C-alpha cells in the first residue's frame, strides 16, 4: 500500500513539474498547433514524449532504414518540421544553442550526434 502511495505521489509530482516547466523555444509550427489546441493529437502525453522520445526515434530509425517503413509518426524529419523556428525569414538550425533540442539537452548534459548527418532545418530551398 505504501509503495502504491509513493508511486502515485511521484507521478503526481512529475506531472505537475512537467506542466509547470514550459519549453523556452517550442518552434514555429509547434507553437501554432499548441495555440490551436491540436498538440495533444500529436503527443497525447507530454511526460511520455519527454521521457521516451529517444526510444521512439531509435525504433523508428531501424524500421525506416532497414524495413522501408516511411511513416510520419516518430520521424526525426517531422520533429524538425514542427519544432524549428525562423529568424529574419530563415530557419535557425534546430541544434543551435537556444533552439528546441539544445535547451533541454544542454541542461541535462547529453551531447547527441543526430545533426552531423541529418538536416537541421525543414525541407530544402526555404
Amino acid at each position, binding site marked *: 500500500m505504501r509503495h502504491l502511495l509513493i508511486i502515485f505521489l511521484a507521478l503526481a509530482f512529475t506531472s505537475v513539474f512537467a506542466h509547470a516547466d514550459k519549453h523556452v523555444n517550442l518552434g514555429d509550427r509547434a507553437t501554432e498547433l499548441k495555440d490551436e489546441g491540436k498538440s495533444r493529437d500529436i503527443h497525447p502525453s507530454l511526460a511520455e514524449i519527454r521521457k521516451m522520445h529517444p526510444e521512439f526515434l531509435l525504433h523508428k530509425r531501424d524500421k525506416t532504414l532497414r524495413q522501408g517503413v*516511411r511513416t510520419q509518426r516518430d520521424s526525426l524529419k517531422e520533429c524538425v518540421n514542427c519544432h524549428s523556428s525562423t529568424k529574419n525569414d530563415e530557419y535557425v538550425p534546430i541544434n543551435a544553442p537556444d533552439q528546441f533540442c539544445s535547451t533541454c539537452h544542454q541542461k541535462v548534459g547529453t551531447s547527441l550526434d543526430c545533426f552531423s548527418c541529418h538536416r537541421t532545418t525543414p525541407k530544402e530551398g526555404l
Partner: protein
Amino acid sequence: MNKELNRRDFLKNTTAVTAGVATIASGITLTTFAANDNPVTNEKRWGMLVDTNKLTESNINDMVNACQEENGWGSEIHSTGHQKPSWIKKIKVKDKVTGKIDMLPMMCQHCEHPPCVDVCPTNASMKREDGIVLVDKHLCIGCRYCMMACPYDARSFVHEDLSNQKEHMPRGKGTVESCTMCVHRVDKGEMPACAEAVSSNGVIFGDLYDANSKINQTLKKIQSTQIRTDLNLNTGVRYSGI
C-alpha cells in the same frame, strides 16, 4: 433504345457495378498501405539494366549530375582527389584486342551476396529484403573495410563536416556511403534519379522477380552481363552492350 429494365438485367448491372467499385477501392487501399506501413519483403528484388549501346557520354554525365542533385554529394570543398565522394561515376573500358571503347555508368551493383556486408564489423553495411544494399550510418564506425571489399569501388568515405544535407538523405563525416538506388524514391513508387535522367531506354529500372516487369522481360530477350561474373555475387545492376 427504350428498353424496360427487367429484374434479371437490374441484378446483372448492379452486381457488375458493385464488383467494379470493390475492386478499385481495394486496389487503392492496398497500394496506400504497401507504400507506407508494411516492411519491404523479399518478394521483390530491385534491379537495373544499363544498355551501353543506347547511352551516349552526355547521357552518363546526366546520370551523374542527377544523382548529385538528388542526394546532395559532390560539393565537398576540403576533400581532395580520391577523397571526394562518388556514388556513381563514368567509366571507360577498352577491349585491347579490338580497340572497342565503351562508356558506362558504375555504381553500387546491389549484389545478392554483397562482400561489403560480409566484412562489416558492426552490421552497418546491410542488404534490405528487397535487395537494396545500404549503409546504416547510425552504426557505421568508418573503418572502411567495406570500401576495401567492394570489387566495384562503389563506396566513398566522407572526410569533412557537412551541412545543409538533403532532408531525405542524411550524410556525415566519418561514415561510408554509396548509391542507395534512391531508396527514398523507390519506397514512394518512383524511379531512381539516374534512371529518370535518361529519356531513352538506356536504363531500365524495375523488379527483377516480376515476370511482367519491363526489366524482367528485356533480360529474358537480350544478351546481358554482370560485371565480374566470376565472383558469383549475382548483382542487381546488369549491363548489356559491353
